[in-house]
């Protein structure tokens, strides 16, 4: 495991993409995955509970002050921004929305970049706004690995295109190839 964490930003088309990813992650996948999925402020956390138990990997909502553990997938809770502290625990805030979004991808990515530096993988997937662009840029500046879904293969291409126009990512890949790459990196 040469990377300590994976952060993923995803918006419209996200649920489908995430389900594909979860169904392909092998048992014993270690690197923790932290996800901002744009979602209505009024939704409760039931959808996360539904996801958990369907796949081999543990999926849960990130709790305030919770320690980030290997082998787990965490979602930012609806209506809160998610931040990462230096002792690898989560913080939540209700600061104003960023790019009309709360949780915002930029907020998570910028904070994860500060914390994990070059031990971080940042991924932008399908979505129809430009949240995440500043964040993935910050990850690159801090030495992390950056991956963007190939816009041609994304259900909504706006978010990947925005990311690619701001930085030259290390990889531009289809979702399937991103998953293969993650599995390979997890074993290293």
């Amino acid at each position: 495991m040469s990377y300590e964490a994976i952060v993923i930003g995803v918006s419209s088309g996200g649920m489908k993409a995430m389900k594909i990813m979860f169904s392909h992650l092998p048992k014993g996948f270690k690197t923790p995955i932290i996800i901002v999925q744009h979602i209505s402020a009024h939704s409760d956390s039931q959808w996360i509970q539904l996801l958990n138990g369907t796949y081999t990997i543990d999926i849960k909502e990130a709790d305030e002050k919770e320690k980030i553990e290997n082998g787990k997938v965490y979602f930012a809770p609806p209506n809160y921004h998610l931040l990462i502290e230096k002792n690898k625990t989560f913080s939540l805030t209700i600061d104003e929305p960023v790019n009309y979004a709360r949780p915002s991808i930029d907020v998570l990515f910028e904070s994860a970049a500060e914390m994990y530096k070059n031990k971080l993988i940042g991924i932008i997937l399908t979505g129809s706004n430009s949240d995440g662009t500043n964040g993935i840029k910050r990850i690159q500046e801090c030495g992390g690995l950056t991956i963007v879904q190939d816009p041609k293969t994304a259900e909504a291409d706006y978010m990947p295109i925005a990311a690619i126009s701001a930085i030259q990512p290390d990889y531009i890949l289809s979702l399937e190839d991103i998953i293969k790459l993650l599995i390979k990196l997890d074993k290293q």
Partner: protein
Amino acid sequence: MSEFEISSLLQAIYQKYGYDFRQYSEAHIRRRIMNRMSMSGLKDVSQIQSMVLKDETIASQLLQDLSITVTEMFRDSGFYKSLRDYVIPILKTYPFIKIWHAGCATGEEAYSMAIIMQEEGLYDRTTIYATDFNQQALNKAKEGIFSNKMIKEYTINYQLSGGKESLSSYYTSNYGNVIMNQSLKKNIVWANHNLVTDSVFAEVHLILCRNVLIYFEKDLQNKVQKLFYNSLINGGVLCLGSKEGLRFTDFYEEYKDVDKKQKIFKKKYQLANALEG
């Protein structure tokens, strides 16, 4: 920006202005300082540190940045519904009722509470202490004038929370603003109080402290929970934000769940007191 730079800035703010952010979540503080630096075109922390110490306007801007005053009326309608169903019956048993909103920001939460107490016929025997350490926010709260941009959202929240009237009967509209009714203000006492550095100021039946403690590190949360514990009467009720809890504090065993999901807790009777009484 290193940890050391941040803590030295916070130390300087504390010494000069008395505001103690030293045990706030570092990721939060870092984010707000970086925002302020990029908005003011500053390159490094030492620059902002010397400016904050020299220039009171920048200092007060930074204090605004660090104290997040984002709030709503009837935020989390499920919470207010539960408040009506489970907490109001408890409050009804008291001849007079004291409520403390700690970290009330611009007051929307306290006005929401005043509305509920009015609808439940309890407002005349209620005092609401609404406190914050942000004077600018308190001034706005006292005025009770809010932009009408959010009112549609608030109306939905209010209805979902079990509101008995129409929300519009509690305010008058005026040029893009709404002005809260005088009758709601009459039993609200607005006061400047810092949860980190000030002590208990009243004994109360109900405390609401929602979305404030998420910004605090564990030890500080614990310290503030002690303050709350000492402010509540036996059997008093504590309401936290929907993502907050008591699990990491020393007071987990001292409360019973009223509504686990909505983070409503009831202080257990202390045996010693019960025996004496």
